[in-house]
């Protein structure tokens, strides 16, 4: 229904820079998730798009129209809040009808629109109740209902699932993804949970300290993280980072030496990296398998059934985590050897920038 473009958005609170130079082009009908640690500016950015807060500088365009100075309702935007922000004294019907009442729509039209929204969200039987009589998931659906009756161009969600328990959160993730498809809507969703980002987003914006670290599809971020920050933020359990020194660069890639002395040639573009540079080798726990290589003292083993997450320490005190098959015969306290395919390794330079991987899965078109 609408594209959303942000150009050089900045936001200062006094001397404190919350956002600096945010440029973003969100496509029509795209589900984009802003993800990042708390304090990274993702909620502020969402509130600026919503019109609840003014950017210090920069423009916001919806469908090519500059709405930077428009009121939220004139931007064609609606928002679902973390706390649902339902009105406890109004019935579910009136809660959903609120935006229509503000717009002074005729009663018949209000009834029809609320009925349709309630049907989509399976709230038809609950319309006469008060929010206090609903469960958390139902309240969340009412909040969504209030945002869809107005037929906005862009939907904004501010951590909508963080008040729900784990099981319900999983359920609502699926519902939201389905809703996005059904409504054919452009959605921007803020969360600190990388699982929500990975599962729902068409594209993810990873924010850190008020800057965009990377903007790409979930699998792009997973296979080709642009920075060390993105690499450790995306993926569960977190990526292992092992310090190493570059001993040579060549056509096959970069040869590194680990502190234990082992050498390995990793198929990545050397870029400006030279022999002697210190780098970090990033290894995803799921890419580690038992075998000759890195020696780890196994401290805790979490058996999840299908997989077993092994947490341990290498000789030099470095923490390491590996996701092994569920039935792997290893025991806590044991010394285990871990190995990996060179093609699975990520290499980050001293500034935390990635050296491009050559043999990783191709970028999704």
């Amino acid at each position: 229904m609408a594209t959303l473009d942000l150009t050089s958005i900045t936001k200062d609170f006094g001397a404190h820079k919350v956002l600096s130079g945010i440029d973003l082009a969100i496509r029509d009908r795209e589900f984009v998730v802003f993800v990042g640690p708390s304090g990274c500016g993702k909620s502020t950015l969402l509130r600026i798009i919503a019109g609840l807060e003014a950017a210090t500088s920069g423009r916001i365009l919806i469908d090519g129209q500059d709405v930077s100075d428009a009121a939220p309702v004139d931007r064609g935007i609606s928002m679902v809040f973390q706390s649902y922000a339902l009105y406890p004294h109004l019935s579910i019907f009136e809660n959903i009808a609120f935006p229509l009442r503000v717009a002074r729509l005729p009663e018949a039209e209000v009834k029809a629109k609320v009925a349709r929204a309630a049907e989509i969200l399976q709230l038809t039987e609950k319309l006469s109740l008060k929010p206090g009589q609903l469960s958390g998931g139902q309240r969340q659906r009412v909040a969504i209902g209030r945002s869809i009756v107005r037929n906005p161009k862009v939907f904004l969600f501010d951590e909508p699932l963080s008040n729900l328990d784990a099981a319900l959160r999983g359920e609502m993730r699926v519902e939201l993804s389905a809703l996005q498809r059904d409504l054919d809507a452009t959605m921007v969703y803020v969360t600190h949970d990388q699982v929500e980002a990975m599962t729902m987003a068409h594209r993810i914006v990873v924010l850190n300290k008020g800057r965009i670290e990377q903007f790409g599809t979930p699998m792009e971020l997973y296979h080709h993280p642009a920075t060390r920050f993105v690499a450790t933020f995306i993926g569960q359990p977190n990526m292992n980072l092992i310090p190493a020194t570059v001993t040579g660069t060549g056509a096959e890639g970069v040869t590194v030496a680990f502190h234990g002395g082992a050498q390995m040639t990793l198929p990545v573009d050397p870029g400006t990296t030279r022999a002697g540079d210190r780098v970090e080798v990033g290894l995803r726990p799921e890419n580690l398998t038992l075998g000759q290589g890195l020696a780890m003292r196994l401290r805790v083993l979490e058996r999840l059934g299908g997989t077993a997450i092994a947490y341990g320490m290498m000789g030099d005190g470095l923490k390491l985590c590996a996701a092994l098959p569920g039935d792997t015969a290893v025991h806590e306290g044991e010394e285990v050897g871990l190995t990996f395919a060179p093609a699975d390794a990520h290499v980050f330079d001293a500034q935390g920038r990635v050296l491009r991987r050559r043999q990783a899965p191709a970028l999704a078109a």
Partner: protein
Amino acid sequence: MMDRYTLLQKIGIYFGIAVFLTFILLPFFEMFMTSLKPLNHILRAPYQFWSDDFSFDAYTRMWERVPLLGRYIWNSIFIATTVTIIAMIVIVPAAYAYARLDFPFKTQSLGLFLSVNMFAGAVLLIPLYKLMRTLGLLNTYWAMIIPGVAFLIPTGIWLLRGYLEKIPKEMEEAAYMDGASRLYTLRRVILPLAGPGLVVVATTVFITAYAQQYLFAVTFNSNGNLHPLPVGLLQFIGYQNVEWNMMMAAALTGITPVLLVFLFLQRYLVAGLTAGAVKE
């Protein structure tokens, strides 16, 4: 649960409550007892708590002794009600502004308002008298209503602001996102949610207005038809004797309608508080 007290603790708590209630309620009880006794029993020495001649005589004779008594009771309620209505009309938007909006000298101006309350009404009587005279309001209801409102606004704002601040900001933001204006949001979202707070503030204002009438009435009003009950009660003080029993009967009769209203409001208050507990 919070109510896990031992028997001994419970006895202690109830004892404390009993002492406290005795202090508060004994004067009312004594008023009631006095109103039932004949005058010569009241003045009997030594003091006798129990009389052998109780009657409701004073309750009928007081209307003859002070023919305007009904009028005084009505004046009291009328003045306090008008003060409450006018004060609330001013307090609600002001408290909302102090709770939500940002404007220059916000804290300073609220402090200034409150500092007015540091002065006892009596200190300001003479300037107020001059003001009322200049405005030509002496000997009218307004002379008792306007100062009453003025003295109650600061505390009212202070009290209500606390309630309004507790309403989650997101509710307003959600309404704002949906295109609602500030006034629409205030009317449809904030005020219904602040219901219990409004009742508390209105109650406080009413009670204070009821209690502070005496000073303003004695000073700014000499029209006998406009006097509130506290001034009217003075008429039971005669040249030769004070009709204590009738005075107590009149005082009790005067507060009864107010008492009934608050008994009703109290129930609403409790219901309102639990209704507001719906949101997290």
